[in-house]
């Protein structure tokens, strides 16, 4: 058994599996238990990590566990985070923080009352290209920022447990689930948002093709545009362009692939080129490392409950604007 903090993971889907890998790498935390409603998924993670498969209730009640990592669908975040805080556990919770501001407030209050740390998984703040760009902007490379454009997506609507991403009441769609990453990054880069105006396919003729365009005005004066797409345009990609008084930063993940692999299928049929990523460390690991090191007193926290709450506010404002056709002031 490794020294350090004992972690229980609730939810073994895509993000839960990814977080489980991070704990394998860290030397000051250990994943000791995993819970999932689908036993095979929990068993697969347990087999890879040495964790024990248990129920969520058992994990939260176990006094030997220090940290609960919550990777369940968005609409269930509040229940698990509050229960974990009430049991005196530190909590790391996937983004978006919650489905509503009220739920997020309850989560913050529970953690404050219990005196435990809450971290929210806004992992984009840990991606090297986004960190580099942030540092370049703050070292004055573009001067005062004027207009920022962000893009995220380009793949069909994700399918998951009970198709919860497709259920607006559960997930909030791509604005709340995915481009909240960009809202969070933009808030980090530019400070508070003044006004949001947005349009999306939801409420029109949605049919599982979700696409949204969001216009943001920041208190700094900067203007931003965020594109989110769950429509297939060749696969997941991200872009950002940061234009300022004296310079411009331009990033397109499709142009920053170190490896493009094309393998012919059986019979010599041409295959589909698939970009492979090449990280020294997964940003998901860096994100978890930060939270664990915060608990160890080694690092300052990058995304706490308040940060998660403020980014949630922007995403919910965009959803409100899509629904009402009016701008929303923050």
């Amino acid at each position, binding site marked *: 058994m490794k020294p350090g903090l004992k972690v229980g993971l609730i939810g073994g889907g895509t993000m839960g599996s990814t977080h489980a890998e991070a704990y394998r790498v860290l030397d000051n935390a250990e994943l000791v238990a995993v819970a999932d409603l689908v036993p095979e998924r929990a068993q697969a993670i347990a087999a890879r990590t040495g964790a024990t498969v248990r129920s969520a209730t058992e994990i939260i009640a176990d006094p030997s566990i220090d940290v609960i990592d919550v990777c369940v669908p968005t609409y269930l975040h509040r229940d698990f985070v509050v229960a974990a805080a009430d049991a005196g556990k530190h909590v790391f919770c996937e983004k978006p923080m919650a489905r509503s501001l009220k739920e997020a407030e309850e989560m913050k209050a529970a953690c404050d009352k219990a005196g435990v740390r809450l971290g929210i998984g806004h992992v984009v703040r840990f991606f090297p290209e986004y960190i580099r760009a942030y540092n370049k902007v703050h070292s004055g490379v573009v001067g*005062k920022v*004027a*207009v920022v*454009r962000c893009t995220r997506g*380009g793949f069909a609507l994700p399918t998951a447990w009970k198709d919860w991403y497709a259920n607006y009441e559960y997930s909030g769609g791509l604005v709340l689930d995915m481009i909240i990453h960009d809202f969070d990054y933009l808030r980090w880069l530019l400070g508070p948002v003044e*006004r949001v*105006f*947005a*349009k*999306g*396919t939801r409420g*029109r*003729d949605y*049919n599982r*093709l979700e*696409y949204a*365009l969001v*216009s943001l*005005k920041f208190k700094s*004066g*900067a*203007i931003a*545009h965020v*594109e989110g*797409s769950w*429509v*297939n*345009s060749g696969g997941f990609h991200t872009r950002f362009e940061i*234009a*300022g*008084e*004296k*310079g*411009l930063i331009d990033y397109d993940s499709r142009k920053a692939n170190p490896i493009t692999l094309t393998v012919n299928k059986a019979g010599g049929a041409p295959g589909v080129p698939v970009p492979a990523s090449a990280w020294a460390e997964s940003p998901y690991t860096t994100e978890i490392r930060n939270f664990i090191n915060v608990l160890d007193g080694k690092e300052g926290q990058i995304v706490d409950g308040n940060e998660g709450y403020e980014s949630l506010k922007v995403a919910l404002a965009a959803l409100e604007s899509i629904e009402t*056709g*009016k*701008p929303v002031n923050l």
Partner: protein
Amino acid sequence: MKVGMISFAHLHAESYASALKALPGVEFVGIYDEDNNRGKEWAEKLSVMHFEKLEDLLKTDIEAVIICSTNADHCRYTVAAAEAGKHVLVEKPIATNFADAHKMIETCKKQNVKLQIAFPVRYLPSVLETKRIVESGQLGRILAIKATNHGSMPGGWFTEKDKAGGGAVIDHTVHVVDIIRWMLGLEFKEIYAEYDRLIHNIETEDCGLLTMELTNNVFATLDTSWNRPSAYPTWGDVTMTIIGTNGVLELDGFSQKFDIYNNDVKKAQWEYFGGDMDYLLVKDFLEACKNNTPVKVTGEDGLKTLEVALAAYESGKRHQPVAIEEIRN
């Protein structure tokens, strides 16, 4: 066919002049410019006549004029040329206000001369191919459009409100709005805009972002910002992402380019090698004049794009979406 040019205030004049010089069967007669020295210099450079008075140019047997004045002067030059019986190709935007635009359209109609607005992007081969693909139905029904028409800050009268009618918003709204109307057969219903002077020390806004509601339940955004720094490898862009029920098309209109790295320049440069849209525009306009066929881009088309730009300015004042119908008259 004999052709004259009125004013070299707009940067595009040079490229239209080259087209006139290059087109077979076209005689570029001469230039009038309200700035006498500028007119003289260009006339010498292009080996054409220089006219110190507008009426002297309009008295000649030219059949058509190309007007590249400030936006505010479009109306008076168009009206003068039309009343002299000359066909008119006028730089965009058609005018800086509705009254001028209506006067231009009505005068040309009354004088039975052609009026075309210079929207060269319609002639860009990649744009024509995009139109063909959209019309083939491959994308299915169109749901949304994301567009940009970025540029560098042009300076001069472009940044004076009384001469240009505004800044980056009026300058760079009209091209893409025209393309969307023409390519997709959609009309613009409601405009929301964020714009501001954020980069340059000028009178007008230099950044703009429009969010728009169109017919057929389609929505779109358009970034009009003059935010390409001087270190940028080119002047700007025209891009469109078209989201359909059956596919997505991404157009980057000036992506037919190669990169140049040269020690004397100290910055990367993009060399565009795609079709010359200005040449194709001038050629098409003069053919319409010669054959007496309808022009491709009418005064009404110009007016529709001006409506969107003026609605954007109104929205920016109110911080609310503005219906085109509301500002139309």
